[in-house]
């Protein structure tokens, strides 16, 4: 794997990226860097600007301002050169349902001009590591959702790219297949690829080396998953037990400044600021038939807090 982007080691580098579609601004000033061997998660809801960012990085869309570089090359100026070293898996990757697994791979090998001498070895390698070997004669249309995603990924990898851009690859895939898919992504990073992966699901953040939380075209936080979760500046108390409805009624009836209650199926999360408030919540709920435990905040807690915080600078731990 040749070291990209000179000394900095960033295989993907995005600076000051902006893009509007008419009146609607999709990306408003985004910076991003992904080094070889790392998985960066672009995490945010639909409409946050994830797909636009990825399409600009892949040279499919020109930014209004800013620059995206892949292995040191400007994606807007040299899209072909960039695409030679980059694999892009869009949200709806087009496999040919009537072609078999092996035929789909061969088709993409043709498309990317993989030399005949390399093709057989490359196919065998991809079958092996995607564990699709036993299904090579099955039509793509008859694969499960998880296997389709693995085949799409294999097609994306056919030309041995050094940079992978995957747009919500696990949407609609069950947890077992998702684990398998992430295992493969981790293996690719281990071979030195730089991976940018988008997901609307906060629980996938923990699988990335670093994450960028995106909301309305901006990065609202970035860092390792632990750093981002730790940026949640407040305390969380989990409330569990048979008296949950009573506890919810008590907390709703006596709202306290700065104390927020989030309901989950069989428990509550009480967000608050300090030890005095912890004690007060405990006092209010004494005798309600519930247990209280402090819990560590997750990425989602941080995301909600940052989204609802007054507009300001990006949180960079």
């Amino acid at each position: 794997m040749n070291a990209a982007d000179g000394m900095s080691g960033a295989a993907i580098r995005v600076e000051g990226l902006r893009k509007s579609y008419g009146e609607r601004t999709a990306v408003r000033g985004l910076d991003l860097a992904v080094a070889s061997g790392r998985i960066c998660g672009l995490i945010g809801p639909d409409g946050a600007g994830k797909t636009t960012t990825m399409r600009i990085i892949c040279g499919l869309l020109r930014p209004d301002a800013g620059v995206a570089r892949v292995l040191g090359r400007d994606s807007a100026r040299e899209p072909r050169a960039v695409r030679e070293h980059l694999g892009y898996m869009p949200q709806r990757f087009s496999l040919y349902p009537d072609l078999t697994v092996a035929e789909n791979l061969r088709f993409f090998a043709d498309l990317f001009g993989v030399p005949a001498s390399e093709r057989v070895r490359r196919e065998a390698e991809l079958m092996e590591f995607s564990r699709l070997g036993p299904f090579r004669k099955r039509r793509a249309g008859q694969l499960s959702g998880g296997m389709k995603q693995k085949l799409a990924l294999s097609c994306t990898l056919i030309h041995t790219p050094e940079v992978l851009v995957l747009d919500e690859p696990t949407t609609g895939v069950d947890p077992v297949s998702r684990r398998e898919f992430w295992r493969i992504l981790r293996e690719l990073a281990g071979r030195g690829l730089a991976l940018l992966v988008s997901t609307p699901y906060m629980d996938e953040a923990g699988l990335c080396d670093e994450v960028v939380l995106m909301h309305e075209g901006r990065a609202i936080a970035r860092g390792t998953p632990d750093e981002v979760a730790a940026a949640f500046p407040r305390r969380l108390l989990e409330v569990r037990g048979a008296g949950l409805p009573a506890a919810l009624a008590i907390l709703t009836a006596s709202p306290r400044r700065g104390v927020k209650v989030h309901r989950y199926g069989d428990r509550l999360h009480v967000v608050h600021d300090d030890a005095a408030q912890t004690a007060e919540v405990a006092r209010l709920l004494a005798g309600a038939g519930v247990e209280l435990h402090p819990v560590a905040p997750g990425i989602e807690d941080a995301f909600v807090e940052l989204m609802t915080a007054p507009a300001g600078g990006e949180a960079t731990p």
Partner: protein
Amino acid sequence: MSGEAAVFARRLTRRFGDFTAVESLDLEVAGGEIFGFLGANGAGKTTAIRMLCGLLPPSGGEARVAGCRVGRDTGALKRRIGYMSQRFSLYEDLTVLENLEFFGGVYGLGRAELAARADELLPRLGLDAERGRLTGSLPLGYKQRLSLGCALAHRPRVLFLDEPTGGVDPVARRGFWDLIYEQAADGVTVFVTTHYMDEAEYCGRVSIMVQGRIVALDTPSGLKDRTGGADMQDVFLRLVDA
């Protein structure tokens, strides 16, 4: 008590030729419960749901949903359940109110009834100010709440949700679940299927299906305690691997 359950199944089975997709499913979900029905692809979840919605006759066993016998009272069953999927099918070129009226109308609600139901639902869904807006111009979170409204227009007793909050931001997601909790408090039973374990965290009880059978059924906290899983994703993988 079992006669009172909103969703009840005993030894419910569905075979396709030699293949048993759902094997002797036992389930009892009370009125007003929020129940998560989880499983990997091919575990038999979809087949089970299709039976419970009256879309597929069982090969064996029995089930009752909202007081209707599955496979027998199919017409009445369909009027007593609501269904909302992540891939909601709203008409983008109709207004918010028109969508609600359309879906209510499909279920046979009359004009006056539709108007009254819209006046009741739209404020609760936080969509009152948007009633004249074209649906296509709404943000995703709003469309999702409208879809919920359309599924609720005919006052179903059991509401089936399929990955209801896919793709929305976590604030919108929490707001959506608050609406679901309100419905549950009114006695609506909510039956949720999802691949996303962070959605499962919002359910009161969850079941996990593996190869046609339910292998675990408890509260999310109970399952975490029992399996030692840190979150539902972890719990799910441990149970499926076991």
